[in-house]
């Protein structure tokens, strides 16, 4: 059964979320949202999903600080962070490129990354334009560091990086990425070529598990409807609804 890249990514991310109790998703993140809905449907009906962009799927009642407080308390199991740039040490840059503060290309800002990245046990990095401008050797500005020295309070951190080309796992010991799988029709050479940082890999990396037809049915049915409530434009483009 044919599928779109977005569908592959949702199913791929979803498998990582099966055991989570509470997943929080920031603004403009339809793929993580889809993955969370999918995981809840497939693996854990009791899972709690917070979409910060939604009113319906946001149950916080103590203002927006409650997300950060709840995360600091260890009550949020998984969160997702993008990055204008991501480097080989999993540092993320949400500020812009060039020398700060007079950045050449300025982006919105660091949002809550400088706490969330430290305290949420499973942070998934995502970046859908995998190229040497986004996957860099060293970010121009560290909005939040990938790893911290042992004296720094850090119960959380990165566990994976998903792009439009592949999935990286995080090796916390070595503090670097390890290629976990290549998306269909992507070669190892291509990923090496598009990636500005060094990473570990096997000679013949596996291919990212593709969605089954029952997964696609679920995704295009129930899940697409759930996604559409918060991300109508994405749902229209991806699922035609």
């Amino acid at each position: 059964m044919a599928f779109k890249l977005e569908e592959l990514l949702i199913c791929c991310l979803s498998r990582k979320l099966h055991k989570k109790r509470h997943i929080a998703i920031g603004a403009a993140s339809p793929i993580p949202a889809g993955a969370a809905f999918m995981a809840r449907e497939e693996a854990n009906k009791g899972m709690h999903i917070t979409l910060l962009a939604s009113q319906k799927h946001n149950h916080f009642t103590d203002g927006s600080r409650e997300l950060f407080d709840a995360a600091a308390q260890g009550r949020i199991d998984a969160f997702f962070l993008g990055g204008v740039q991501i480097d080989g040490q999993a540092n993320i840059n949400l500020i812009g490129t060039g020398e700060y503060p007079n950045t050449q290309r300025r982006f919105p800002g660091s949002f809550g990354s400088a706490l969330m990245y430290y305290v949420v046990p499973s942070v998934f990095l995502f970046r859908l334009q995998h190229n040497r401008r986004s996957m860099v050797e060293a970010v121009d500005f560290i909005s939040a560091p990938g790893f911290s020295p042992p004296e720094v309070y850090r119960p959380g951190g990165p566990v994976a990086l998903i792009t439009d080309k592949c999935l990286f796992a995080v090796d916390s010991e070595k503090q670097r990425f390890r290629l976990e799988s290549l998306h269909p029709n992507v070669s190892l050479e291509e990923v090496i070529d598009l990636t500005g940082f060094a990473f570990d890999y096997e000679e013949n990396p596996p291919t990212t598990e593709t969605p089954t037809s029952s997964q696609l049915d679920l995704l295009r049915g129930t899940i697409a409807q759930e996604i559409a409530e918060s991300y109508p434009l994405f749902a229209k483009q991806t699922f035609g609804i």
Partner: protein
Amino acid sequence: MSLHECSIQEIADEVQNGTLLGVPADYSGVPMAFVRELIRQGKSELDLFCLPQSTLQADMLIGAGCVRSVETAAVTLGEYGQAPCFTRFVQEGRLNVKDSTCPALHAALQATERAVPFSPLRGLIGSDLVKHRPDWQVISNPFSDQEDPVILIPAVSPDVTVIHAQKADKNGNVWIGRRKEVATLIHASKRNFVTVEEIVDTDFYEDEVLAAGVLPGFYIEAIAVAKDGAWPLALSDRYPIDEAHLKDYATRAKTEEGFATYLAENLAA
């Protein structure tokens, strides 16, 4: 407790050049009618403190030349793309951005809320944000016998905060619902004004269910009625964002000229 009603012009009159202005997030009720009045009055050298980020409010004030600095976790139009004036002004070196992160902005106001000089915070250590914030300090946790750095965020008190809300009651209480961070912004500000869709002829405290979402009137100096006062932004449960308007803004405000004609059209009303 009593209601002091005023006009939007009178609120804007109270904002002096050089004011540190509290700026609420979009979901908290953005006083856009007041923002347009600030621009009409030609304010300058405003310092903005966003809780914890801003969209159109900061972007328009920046584009109109009203702003000296902005302390924020982000300025963005969200689904409508980057904040065009913010982006342009930063890239041209014309705006002082005190880059922060959401919980640090909350922490700064929570310190003022309790009248303590600082709030400790986790995270942040190792972020380049800290390098550029000489006003933040890292201390060693005095309760730990191991090395344990903790960052301290100093208290911030906006001079004036203005928010937009659905309704006020006859005694000057304002219903804000569950988006409670504006309460912290108001508690921490020296002076507060509110614009509302309507003033109703009841007292919210007569109903304990309503009362749970009330900002007590004694924090608020005066209230102005501004129908559609958050337009073109949304006001929770009242009206959605004006998508066409935002798209139009996102395009036109990319250039000085486009922004100027946008302003000319939208300030006239």
